[in-house]
C-alpha cells in the first residue's frame, strides 16, 4: 500500500492502466490472459489501483469511474448501489462519472450484458478495500481494533467514542493502493441496499427537462452540421451544385470531401433547411443492392461465406428415429432509437474533443484517431446519454460526421441526424436463416439436434478491429466516403470468448446427447450490418424454441413438460416452473383464435435464465394479433436492483414483440425505403401487453446481466402462441397478418 502526501488526486494510476492497455490490444484473442483464475475481474489487472475506480472528494462525495455507459439500462444506478453498499453510504453521496477517455478506466464496450460482472465487481472490490483502509486509519486514530469501528453515512465511530469521517481522513491524502482481492466484500446477508429496489438516479432530471442528453449539450460558439447521403449502403457523389445552398441564410459552409457532403450553419433549423436543399442539388451513383428483399430468404444461402463448426458432439446423423426439420428467417432489423444519433466535436489546436453516446469511448477514440491520422492522445471522447440504442446504431458514425465538419470549419460542431439518416444509415441487425434438424429417441426425448445458421457479422463497431488484430481501415462509416483513403475494416464476427456472434445461443442448453452447431458467416450482405441487442441469440432462440414447440406438438406433448424432460439443472427447472406458474399454465389452448406460447432460454448459455408465456388473440379473418398478457420468470444470479432487472426484462419483452411481430427493414435496388415511423412502425403504447415478471433472486450466485435475456425467448413464445391460436406456423419473421393468414390456409 502506498499512502502519499500529495494533495491532488493524481492520474498516475489511471495512466498506468492505459499504458497497460496497449498490451491488451496487441495480444491475439486466443492467448489473452483469462480472469478465471482469480476472483477479481480481469479488468482489475489493467487498472490495479483503487483510485482508477474510486476517488473520495473531501467535500463529501464519492466519485466513481467506470468504463460502462448509461444507455437507459440503469447501469449507473446498479453500480452506485454496489459502491454505496460497500462503503455504507447513502446512494446520494455516490456519483458516477460518465465514461471519458480522459479519466475513466478503459473497459471495452458497454455491451453483451456484462457490465455488472466486470465493472460492477471491480468496483465492489475497490469499495470494500477502500472502506477497510479508511476503517483502519480510523482505528489507528482512536486506538481501537478495526472491528471497533462503525461506518455510517461516511462517519466512522469508534467503540471508545472517537469519531471521524471518510471526508476528513482523505483530506490531503492520495488513496491509490493496489486492489488485492484480500478484503472480502460484504456477504449477501449483510446487504442494506443491494437486492432492494432502487429508483433510477438519472430519471428525476429526465422527467423534468433538466439537461440530460447529448442533444442538450451546448458548447460556446457551437454551430450545427448536417451530412447529406442517399439512403444506400454504398454510394458516390457524382455532382453537386452547392452555390445556392452556400447563399442560404445562416450557412457557414458547405463541406465536400470525396463523396462526403455536409453543411454547417449557425442555427439548427438553418442546417436542416440547408441539408434539404443540398440533398436536392446532389447527384449520386448507387450500385444496385442485391439480392433483393424478396429473394433474400432463399438466396442468403448462396452468398459468399465461410463455414465454421462450433459444436460437434456425438453424432447427429439419422439413427432411425422420428425426424423433424424446419427453416426459419429473420429479416434485417433497425435499432430505431427514438432519438436520432447526435454528437459534438471541437478542435482546439491539435486536439479533438468529441461528445458521443457511443458504447465504447476508448475503442471509438482509437479508431477515430487512426482514421483521422491523429495521435491517439490528442483525441478525447466523452460519453453523454442518448436514447436507448440497443447496439451499434448511428452513435459512432455521427461522431465522425461532427469531427469531419469540425475539422473542415474550425468551429465546435453539433450534428444531429435526421430520422431518415437514423433509419437508413445506422448499421442493421443482420438478416439470418436458420435450419434445424433433429431426431427423437425411443424415450421420446431428443437424441440429436443440428443447428445451422447463415448470417452476416454481428460486430463491426469502430475500434473492434484492433481487438481482432486487424490494423487496417475504420469502423466509422462517414470516413469511408471521404477522399482520405480510409476504407471499412473487414469485420469478423464476435468470437466465442465474448459469447459468439451469429452462432450465439445456437447450441441448446437442453440435455441432448448429440449436437451440432454450424455457422456460415456471409462476407457480403446487401445492407450494412453490426451489433444489435442479443446479436445472433435473438434469431437462434426464435428458431430453436419454435422448433422445440413444433416437435412437442408433433408428438402430442405439453410444451412445458417436453422442455422439462430435457432439463436436469435445478435453476433451469425452477425458471421454467415459475413462469408456467405465473401464467397459470394448463397446456395448449382449446379455443380457436386464442393461444398461449411458451419459451425458455439462457442468454449466451451462461448469463440470464429466462422463461415466458405469451398470450395472444388472433383475428381469424384479418390475421391481426393482439397480445393481452405475458408472464415470465428470470434468474440473473444475485440481483442488485430488482426493479432495474424487471424493467430491463420487461423492456426486452416488449421490444422483442415489436421486432418479431412487425419489424422489417425494407429496401429496393437503390436503397432503404423504410426511413420513417410509418414505413418502419414499432409497437405502440396501445399494443403493449400487461406484463408480469417473477424474479428468482440467487444472492449467493454471481450477478449477470439482464439486458438481453428476454429478447430471443419472447420471439419464439409469440410464434408458438400464434400457432396455438390458429394452427399457423410462421417461421419467417416478422409474423405479420398476411403471413399468418397464408399459413392458416396452407
Amino acid at each position: 500500500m502506498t499512502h502519499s502526501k500529495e494533495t491532488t488526486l493524481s492520474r498516475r494510476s489511471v495512466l498506468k492502466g492505459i499504458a497497460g492497455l496497449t498490451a491488451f490490444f496487441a495480444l491475439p484473442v486466443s492467448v489473452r490472459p483469462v480472469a478465471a483464475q482469480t476472483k477479481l475481474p480481469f479488468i482489475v489487472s489493467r487498472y490495479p489501483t483503487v483510485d482508477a475506480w474510486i476517488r473520495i472528494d473531501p467535500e463529501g462525495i464519492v466519485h466513481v469511474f467506470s468504463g460502462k455507459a448509461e444507455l437507459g439500462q440503469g447501469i449507473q444506478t446498479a453500480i452506485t448501489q454496489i459502491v454505496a453498499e460497500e462503503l455504507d453510504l447513502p446512494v446520494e453521496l455516490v456519483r458516477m462519472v460518465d465514461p471519458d477517455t480522459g479519466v475513466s478506466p478503459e473497459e471495452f464496450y458497454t455491451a453483451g450484458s456484462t457490465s455488472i460482472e466486470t465493472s460492477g465487481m471491480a468496483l465492489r472490490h475497490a469499495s470494500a478495500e477502500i472502506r477497510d483502509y479508511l476503517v483502519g486509519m480510523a482505528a489507528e486514530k482512536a486506538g481501537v481494533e478495526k472491528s471497533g469501528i462503525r461506518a455510517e453515512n461516511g462517519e466512522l465511530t469508534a467503540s471508545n467514542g472517537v469519531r471521524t469521517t471518510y471526508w476528513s481522513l482523505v483530506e490531503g491524502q492520495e488513496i491509490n493502493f493496489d486492489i488485492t482481492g484480500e478484503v472480502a466484500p460484504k456477504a449477501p446477508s449483510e446487504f442494506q441496499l443491494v437486492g432492494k429496489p432502487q429508483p433510477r438516479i438519472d430519471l428525476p432530471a429526465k422527467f423534468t427537462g433538466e439537461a440530460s442528453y447529448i442533444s442538450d449539450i451546448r458548447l460556446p460558439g457551437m454551430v450545427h452540421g448536417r451530412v447529406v447521403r442517399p439512403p444506400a449502403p454504398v454510394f458516390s457523389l457524382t455532382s453537386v451544385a452547392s452555390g445556392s445552398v452556400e447563399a442560404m441564410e445562416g450557412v457557414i459552409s458547405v463541406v465536400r470531401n470525396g463523396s462526403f457532403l455536409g453543411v454547417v450553419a449557425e442555427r439548427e433549423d438553418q442546417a436542416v433547411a440547408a441539408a434539404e436543399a443540398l440533398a436536392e442539388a446532389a447527384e449520386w451513383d448507387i450500385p444496385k443492392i442485391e439480392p433483393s428483399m424478396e429473394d433474400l430468404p432463399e438466396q442468403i444461402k448462396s452468398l459468399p461465406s465461410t463455414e465454421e463448426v462450433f459444436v460437434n458432439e456425438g453424432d447427429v446423423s439419422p439413427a432411425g428415429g422420428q425426424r423433424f426439420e424446419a427453416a426459419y428467417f429473420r429479416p434485417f432489423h433497425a435499432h430505431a432509437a427514438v432519438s436520432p444519433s447526435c454528437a459534438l466535436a471541437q478542435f482546439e489546436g491539435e486536439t479533438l474533443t468529441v461528445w458521443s453516446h457511443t458504447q465504447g469511448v476508448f475503442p471509438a477514440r482509437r479508431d477515430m484517431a487512426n482514421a483521422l491520422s491523429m495521435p491517439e492522445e490528442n483525441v478525447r471522447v466523452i460519453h453523454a446519454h442518448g436514447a436507448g440504442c440497443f447496439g451499434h446504431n448511428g452513435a459512432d458514425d455521427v461522431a465522425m460526421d461532427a469531427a469531419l465538419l469540425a475539422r473542415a470549419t474550425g468551429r465546435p460542431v453539433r450534428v444531429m441526424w435526421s430520422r431518415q439518416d437514423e433509419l437508413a444509415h445506422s448499421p442493421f441487425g443482420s438478416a439470418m436463416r436458420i435450419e434445424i434438424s433433429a431426431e427423437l429417441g425411443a424415450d421420446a426425448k431428443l437424441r440429436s439436434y443440428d443447428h445451422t445458421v447463415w448470417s452476416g457479422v454481428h460486430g463491426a463497431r469502430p475500434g473492434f478491429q484492433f481487438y481482432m488484430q486487424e490494423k487496417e481501415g475504420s469502423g466509422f462509416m462517414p470516413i469511408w466516403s471521404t477522399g482520405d483513403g480510409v476504407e471499412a475494416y473487414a469485420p469478423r464476427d464476435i468470437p466465442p470468448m465474448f459469447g459468439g456472434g451469429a452462432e450465439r445461443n445456437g447450441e441448446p442448453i437442453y440435455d441432448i446427447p448429440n449436437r451440432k452447431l454450424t455457422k456460415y458467416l456471409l462476407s457480403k450482405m446487401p445492407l450494412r450490418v453490426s451489433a444489435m441487442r442479443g446479436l445472433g441469440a435473438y434469431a437462434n432462440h426464435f428458431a430453436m424454441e419454435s422448433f422445440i414447440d413444433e416437435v412437442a406438438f408433433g408428438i402430442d406433448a405439453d410444451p412445458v413438460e417436453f422442455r422439462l424432460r430435457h432439463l436436469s439443472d435445478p435453476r433451469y427447472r425452477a425458471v421454467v416452473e415459475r413462469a408456467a406458474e405465473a401464467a397459470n399454465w394448463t397446456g395448449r389452448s382449446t379455443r380457436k383464435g386464442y393461444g398461449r406460447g411458451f419459451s425458455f432460454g439462457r442468454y449466451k448459455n451462461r448469463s440470464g435464465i429466462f422463461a415466458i408465456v405469451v398470450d395472444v388473440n388472433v383475428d381469424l379473418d384479418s390475421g391481426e394479433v393482439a397480445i393481452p398478457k405475458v408472464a415470465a420468470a428470470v434468474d440473473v444470479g444475485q440481483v442488485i436492483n430488482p426493479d432495474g432487472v424487471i424493467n430491463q426484462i420487461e423492456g426486452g419483452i416488449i421490444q422483442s414483440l415489436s421486432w418479431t411481430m412487425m419489424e422489417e427493414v425494407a429496401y429496393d435496388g437503390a436503397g432503404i425505403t423504410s426511413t420513417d415511423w410509418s414505413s418502419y412502425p414499432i409497437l405502440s403504447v396501445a399494443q403493449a401487453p400487461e406484463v408480469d415478471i417473477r424474479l428468482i433472486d440467487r444472492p449467493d450466485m454471481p450477478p449477470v446481466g439482464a439486458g438481453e435475456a428476454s429478447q430471443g425467448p419472447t420471439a419464439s413464445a409469440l410464434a408458438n402462441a400464434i400457432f396455438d391460436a390458429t394452427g399457423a406456423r410462421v417461421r419467417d419473421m416478422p409474423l405479420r397478418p398476411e403471413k399468418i393468414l397464408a399459413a392458416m390456409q396452407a
Partner: protein
Amino acid sequence: MVEFQLNGKAVSSGTGEDVPLLFALREEFSLNGPKFGCGSGQCGACTVLVDGQAVQSCVTPLSAAAGSEVVSLEGLSAGGTLHAVQQAFLDEQAAQCGYCSNGMIMRAVELLSANPAASDAEIRDGMDGVLCRCGAQARVLKAIKRAQSQL
C-alpha cells in the same frame, strides 16, 4: 417578433415565423424538455402544450404560438413540485432511457385534463403517436393510471 407566454413568462422570439417551434424552444430559450425525434409529427418526442393542447412542436411553426400559452415539461414542475403525472412516472419508473418521457408525460397531462375519467381503452388510444423504443409502454400505462387516481 412572435410573442407568447412560455412556462408562465411573457417572451418574444426573433427566430423566423416559419421556424418550427421546437427549434425556437430549444435554441433560443434553451429548453431541454421538448426533444427532436423525427421532425415529421410521427413520434411525439417534441410535444408541448399550447393553450392546454398537446402539439407536436416539430411541425408547428413558431407563428402558431403567437399570443398563446406554451407549457413545456420544465413548466409542469415550475413551482418546484412535480406534476402528478411526473410523480407517477417516477413512482412507476416508467422509462428506460427516458427520451420518450417528455412526449409521454405531456400527452398524458393533456389526456387526463381533457378526460379525467378516461377508460383504459381511451388512455391507450390517447397515447397514439407517442413512441417508445425501450419497451416502457406497459409502465407508461401504469403510470398514467396511477396519476389518474391521484388527480
